[in-house]
């Protein structure tokens, strides 16, 4: 029997912790400190089912380009691919989805100087 409990992800997010946002922005692929690990685990385990399906990437060109997409929880339902949301690095994609999830969790508005990826 398969048992999935995404709603069990209950680590309490402190929505004022912009320092965690900054840490993720600097290193989207890790390694991360303990608290950022917990925040990411909350996001990744719970998925985004309440807002229209888990954020995923669809490979457009192997190793080069990825599209943002939503994976519905229901088996058989098509993945919704956003063909105009193209990423050329996985780090950029992680940062973009992090921002979407942070906002969905009610996180404090990300200041302008933190919104763009680090070059």
């Amino acid at each position, binding site marked *: 029997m398969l048992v999935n409990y995404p709603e069990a992800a209950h680590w309490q997010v402190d929505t004022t912790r912009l320092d965690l946002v900054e840490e993720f922005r600097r290193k989207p692929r890790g390694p991360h400190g303990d608290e950022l690990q917990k925040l990411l685990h909350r996001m990744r385990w719970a*998925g985004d089912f309440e807002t229209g399906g888990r954020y995923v990437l669809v490979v457009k060109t192997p190793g080069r380009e990825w599209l943002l997409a939503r*994976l519905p929880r229901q088996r058989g339902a098509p993945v919704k691919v956003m063909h105009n949301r193209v990423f050329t690095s996985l780090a950029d994609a992680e940062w973009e989805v992090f921002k979407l999830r942070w906002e969905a969790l009610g996180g404090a508005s990300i200041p302008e100087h933190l919104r763009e990826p680090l070059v």
Partner: protein
Amino acid sequence: MTDTTAVLGYAWPLIVSAGETIAFHLSSATLDSAEVTLVRVRCGDPDPNGPGLRLREMEASINGHAALAHQVIRPGSCAIVPDGPALSDFQSFTAGAFVWPTLPGDDRAQTVLSRWRDDLQCGWRLGLDSRGHAEFVLSAAGETWRVATLQPLLSREWVLLGASWNARSGAISIMVKSLDPQSGRERSAVVEGHGPTSMPWPRETPLVMAAHAKDEAYYAAFFDGKIDRPRLYAEALTRDALHRLCEAHTVAPGDPHLIGAWNFALDIPTESVTDMSANRLHGTLRQMPARAMTGANWDGSSDRWTDRPTHYGAIHFHSDDMADAEWKPSLEFTIPADWRSGFYALRLRARTESADPVESFVAFFVRADLGKPKSRLAFVASTATFLAYANSALRLDQVHAEAMLEGLLTLSQDDLYIQEHRELGLSTYDTHADGSGWCISTAKRPILNTRPRGAVFNYGNDTHLIDWLEQTGQDYDIITDDDIHRHGLPVLRPYGCVITGSHPEYISREIWDAFDAYQQGGGRHMYLGGNGFYWRIAYHRTQPHTIEMRRGMSGLRTWEGEAGETTLAFTGEPSSTWRSNGRPPQRLLGVGFDAQVFTHSSPYRWLDGAKAPSLGWLTDGIDLDKPLGDFGLRGNGAAGVEVDRVEFTLGSPPGTIWLATADNLGYGGTPTPEEVRTLHRGIMGDQNAQVRADITFFPTANGGGVFSTGSIAWVCALSHTNYQNNVSQLTGNVLKRFLDKEPL
């Protein structure tokens, strides 16, 4: 974006010898034709950061345009008893069985027992209606009689389910008896209604269990759940009388009213269902449902169907079981006698000038002829593992996948297709629509993740080793798990050295025994993977390329089998991990699975064991003060993904030379459950040195030896900096020595 699914297919057989004929079964819902080319696979991973796709076009008579047709897959398992006089030679009757529904009330009718034709709307059927209520329907000549219970059945609770028709009184009844009626589980009921006083039975209609006939050719209303001891009796019985009839393991064949009494505990390894009545109404199973399942009477006194077969009289049917796509062959080709053994594929192209060109592949393997090696080296195609993972939907269905993989899921076109096309049949990592585990995998269906451009895990990763062999000019034969299973040691023995690839995870007893005998007989084995020789499986005794596995109570598993259902139906052997079967991989390989790590991969550091002067052949040209494998296509390191370690208490040989270790895998290093007996914090790789990958060498009897790297990421580091790196150097050093006939 390349379209990899507009045309799909499978090769049968999956594995051929040169000189044999292979058939390609193809289908497309959108294309009339495709350009086909047979290719030999050197690298199937399109990632431009590595070697990229490397395919050699072969000269073949079937190259050119091929016409395509759309062929449908019809999943759903059931038992079919061909029509015969005994199925029509009565009027009043009772039908019943113990049932354990797993998807009651999922908005579709589910038939348990029937002799019914949808197209004719004629016959009788007993099952569940779309709301999960038990129902009995009789229909003929435009008239329908139906009776149903007021309450729906519960999921995963045993009931006696029965129906009777008394032709003398015209009464019909539906009967349910809950076997555990307390604490809110009570669903027992007998509901009577008006029925006919005579019935013209439909002609040429089989008796079907777990479905009913849609028309002459197809079936519908597949039942999800277990059925145990189905009975058919030519009298209207009371519920108690039906209960006694179903409970009896031996029936009275002399009873003239007994139409059929099926014993699913007989012939468990086969697709036959056996009738114990004098009518001999034996049937066959379609699409391989799970057998050797605990019945309504299972009491935990044994977990082996071979010990207590009468407790294993259930079959678990699934509406999505799929073992045979039943596609007609589209192309046939006889492999020329001079073709080398290898990984091959049929490439299908269409719309080549468009923005979404079609490039799809159908993989197959050409084996080296048994006993006729053309090289001193053999590389094993891990076909059992490829089957175990065939069409895995793990990342789609299991919500822990993104957390486990420590990053956004990256889906391919193949993944998007599987999400919508579950009729392909999934992998042994997946669960059926009813949540139960997928135990059986076959190759008579398109397999999207065993082909060039497919998901790199397993097949794609293994082609990196082939690429390296080609790059270094090393000749080799290809042999396969299926053939080692079938023919045993003689497949391995001709070779001075045998390499197993990135992930030889699924191993039958026959395969294990062959490697053990090969190694003890002086053979040299290079195990260049991780999580190898881990799960115990069985091959079907007569159906080629068909494996079965049961996920038991240990091991890193995506589902857990029901209690009492960990014994393989194909052979009666226990399944689960080899470690829980008394054969930890450490005993055969020196290392065994301990952890997975997806955050990043790591380099190894050399240990003192590697510095022995007698191992100069192994470390030649390598700086032992530098990290080994701080690069690679899987997480930027050679030690990662799934990793193995030395453990002397689990059988790492006393003669093991522990050459190198990667024991700082970080917080992403996650131990496998069987490594953790009690719980405490701090068990991840940042705090736990048992979470690691080890490289070992040990000599075996008769001059043989075993070299293990204990990491799936290893082979994906070989091509770094144009194949000039210490992972490539070490692999080459060991291979050179292992091919040398001088005893180790």
